[in-house]
């Protein structure tokens, strides 16, 4: 049991590491946010789950923690991305299009 728990925790740590690497490698705020949200959510969940499996008395509380991470992580990243866009941070030059900026310009013209 302890072995499986360790493997799960280790996999979670690997995802956390890849997420932080994504934050370093991606070109702009939005892409960084993507890497920093998805990989870290799964990483945190798996790390916590590993701890819960290793020490089964903690499992209910660990599950509760996972639930809270799952609810709050996407909300905070959405709020940050929205704030970044509204304060005028540009997308990277590799971007193809930006419907939100287009719509904002239309609203100002109208």
């Amino acid at each position, binding site marked *: 049991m302890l072995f499986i728990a360790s493997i799960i925790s280790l996999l979670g740590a690997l995802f956390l590491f890849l997420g932080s690497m994504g934050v370093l490698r991606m070109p702009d705020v939005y892409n960084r946010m993507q890497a920093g949200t998805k990989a870290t959510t*799964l990483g945190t969940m798996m790390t916590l789950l590993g701890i819960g499996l290793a020490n089964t008395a903690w499992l209910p509380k660990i599950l509760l923690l996972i639930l809270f991470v799952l609810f709050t992580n996407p909300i905070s990243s959405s709020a940050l991305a929205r704030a970044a866009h509204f304060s005028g941070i540009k997308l990277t030059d590799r971007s193809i299009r930006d419907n939100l900026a287009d719509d904002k310009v239309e609203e100002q013209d109208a």
Partner: protein
Amino acid sequence: MRRVKALILSYLILTGLWLVLSEVTRNEFIIGSLVSATISLIFSSRLAILENVKLNPKALFCSIKFIFVFLRELFKSAIDVAIRVLSPSLPINPGIVKVRTKLHSKLGRIVLANSITLTPGTMTVEAKGEYLYIHWIDIKSDDIESATVAIVSTFEKHLEVMYG
């Protein structure tokens, strides 16, 4: 009647939280449920969003199915990020696209936006009425309809049953 539903739901959620967090003894349970009931009563007018939860067997079944669909997508997205980060050429093709959702309830839209944030390559930036603006790391389609099919439809068909 609808407010009563939100009240009962919030009471059940709070009591459940208390049961998980505390040692289960009789006195603690009584105090906990009293405090939960008080909180639910005080904030019942702001909990209107819970009214959207549908309580029928089909919706419950769909909720369980939705959890598994969601976990599968979460795994796929983490692996997708890992592959993108690890490949030397950094294969991204980003941009913000606009999609349209069929969901009418507020709660359904919130859950949809958050689910989209945790699925492969997409992140909700702004929600305006029935339109969602989504940052997509690898744009594959150009118009609203095909983007909607690609991003939203996986979750929408479950959420429609759950929240309407």
